């Protein structure tokens, strides 16, 4: 398969690297409205053809797949255009600016009979896949509640870019800073929730004012509570101020509870006090230590097998997406889940909108 990437910013490197790694498709072209950006990407990835117009790239290079890695307000137009030109499309998150946009892309894909994927990569981390198996096998019983946190480092390279530039595209998103990451959080929990989902949201700015109205309008702390039809709840913290920067999820089930740390790639069952009295409190720390040690050993094994890349999860996701294109599997992220994530984001944006 011949692949082209549109949008030659930072995340395009992740796509290119993992495409190379899975070896299922040949990256042949890069497109960016800024010719210098297409040039640098092309040079760094071994002399790809360079374009400033996606349609021209698709036609000239006879592409089978287009990866869309541009700012989100361009996703609907680019994805639909590529689909209508006969390409399968893999879209960077956020999939669209809102639910209506997400629906347009999916309807377009279905109308032309092409596959559309989205980079909801964290469900494809090794421990997240293990969690999926535990849930499917009923090892946790019925899910009662989920807690999840996602840290956003405003002092990091990306954070600085957002904070120092009122014209950065993040400020144009309806949900601003959170809109750029919240689908990572929601994509993890949506499969555990039944429709309809009620959303409660609260956001605020904790950092001092910068004096720039646009930058200061951006909240940096978000709290969510989701409740589904059956009373299952999800509490979410997306924050910029808690240290260390976390990315974790705890799933409480009627049989067992597990904690998944996406950054450390560990999945451990929560400690259980099986013995009475003070003795009962003596064992859990050692049991947990042993469980973490086993995670560490597994990770070491994965490293030895070269399966511990920083973007390993994206590698798995792309492999499955290309399987789906070749008719060898289902969509790795079902269309219904993409739409449900988009609908909840709409609900969050609505909940956070200023009221008269």
């Amino acid at each position, binding site marked *: 398969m011949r692949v082209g990437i549109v949008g*030659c910013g930072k995340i395009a*490197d992740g796509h290119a690297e993992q495409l190379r*790694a899975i070896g299922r498709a040949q990256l042949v072209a890069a497109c960016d409205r800024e010719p*210098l950006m297409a040039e*640098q*990407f092309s*040079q*760094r990835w071994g002399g790809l053809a360079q374009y400033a117009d996606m349609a021209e790239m698709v036609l000239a290079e006879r592409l089978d797949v287009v990866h869309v890695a541009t700012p989100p307000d361009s996703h609907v137009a680019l994805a639909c255009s590529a689909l209508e030109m006969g390409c399968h499309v893999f879209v960077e998150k956020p999939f669209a600016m809102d639910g209506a946009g997400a629906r347009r892309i999916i309807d377009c894909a279905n109308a032309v009979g092409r596959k559309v994927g989205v980079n909801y990569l964290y469900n494809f981390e090794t421990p997240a896949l293990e969690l999926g198996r535990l849930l499917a096998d009923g090892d946790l019983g019925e899910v009662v509640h989920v807690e999840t946190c996602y840290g956003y480092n405003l002092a990091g390279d990306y954070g600085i870019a957002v904070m*120092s530039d009122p014209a950065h595209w993040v400020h144009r998103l309806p949900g601003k800073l959170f809109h750029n990451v919240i689908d990572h959080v929601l994509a993890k929990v949506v499969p555990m929730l039944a429709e309809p989902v009620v959303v409660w949201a609260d956001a605020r700015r904790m950092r001092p004012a910068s004096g720039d109205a646009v930058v200061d309008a951006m909240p940096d702390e978000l709290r969510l509570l989701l409740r589904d039809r059956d009373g299952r709840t999800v509490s979410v913290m997306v924050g910029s101020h808690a240290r260390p920067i976390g990315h974790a999820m705890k799933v409480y089930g009627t049989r067992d509870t597990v904690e998944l740390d996406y950054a450390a790639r560990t999945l451990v069952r929560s400690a259980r006090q099986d013995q009475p009295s003070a003795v009962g409190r003596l064992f859990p720390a050692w049991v947990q230590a042993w469980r973490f040690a086993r995670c560490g050993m597994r990770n070491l094994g994965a490293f030895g097998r070269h399966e511990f890349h920083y973007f390993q999860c994206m590698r798995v996701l792309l492999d499955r997406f290309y399987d789906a294109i070749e008719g060898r599997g289902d969509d790795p992220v079902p269309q219904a889940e993409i739409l449900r994530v988009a609908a909840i984001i709409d609900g969050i944006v609505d909940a956070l909108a200023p009221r008269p």
Partner: protein
Amino acid sequence: MKVLLTGAGGFLGRCVAHSLLEAGVDDLRLHFRGAPPGNLLDALRRRHPDARIEASAANLLYACDLPALVNGVECIVHAAAGMRGSAADMFANTVVGTRNLLDAAAVEGVRRVVMVGSFSVYRTEGLARGAVHDESVPIEAVGIEKGAYAHAKTRQEHLLAEYRARFGFETVVLRPGVIYGPGGGAFSSRVGIRAMGLFFSLGRGAELPLTYVENCADAVARATLHGVDGRAYNVVDDDLPSCGQYLRGYQARVGRLRVLPVPYWLFLLGARCLVRYHRVSKGQLPAVFTPYVVRSMYRPLRHSNAALKALGWRQRVPTQAGLARTFQALSGTPP
């Protein structure tokens, strides 16, 4: 002559502003990406009450903001560049920003462009051990083998040459070695890197091409006013220490490190292994050190500042004093 200084809020830029005014520039526009840092403007105006000093905020990535930035300017001193972030970010902030600036400069009729380049653009791989590294060494065609920063800075220089040919700007390029001083980083990767609780000493006996930030700023100012059109100037100080001497000075004045010396041959061998592992593991570890990088950056060379001296530049802060001030700042003790 009205001079625009881009990147005036940066580590080097702040000092360049002072040096330009000291050198006699009396009409200076300072470019900042956001708000000017601290009391920089007040300090400059206090020391140079007769000079006209303006501040102008603009993001060089937005071309529409730049005509106003360069309006009325005769000379641009371009010190802004992307120093951190991803390869794409660094390239955008260095090369796309420069292209936008030069486009605006061409329209506004700017006469002269002085650019702060980098040592990283030189194609030094072929130099013999102990050879003199001066401006006669050719620059890279692309520079991609030496990493994202070198790639961006190399493209930036080629871009300046293209615009010089198209629009007839006078151009001067300053190529500083390792700029250091209070407020800067402790270690250039030429000296070594910290990892796993150790400091891997890489440069060892190789000469470290240091330039104290105020000396470098003086060089930029000197070249702005007197630099020969079309020329490039290396910027290094006199009495350069070796990487090992710098490291020993750091340990004596700032703090002890658990140092692991890496001989050149072992470093080269390790770089070969890393590249091989990177390929076999499909990128599980990044190939930050390649044999090309090791041969280009870690082979012992001697560095010349003769061209800069011929221009009239003299080192204001002696190397020993510069090192003492830097180590004092790094150790957190008050001056």
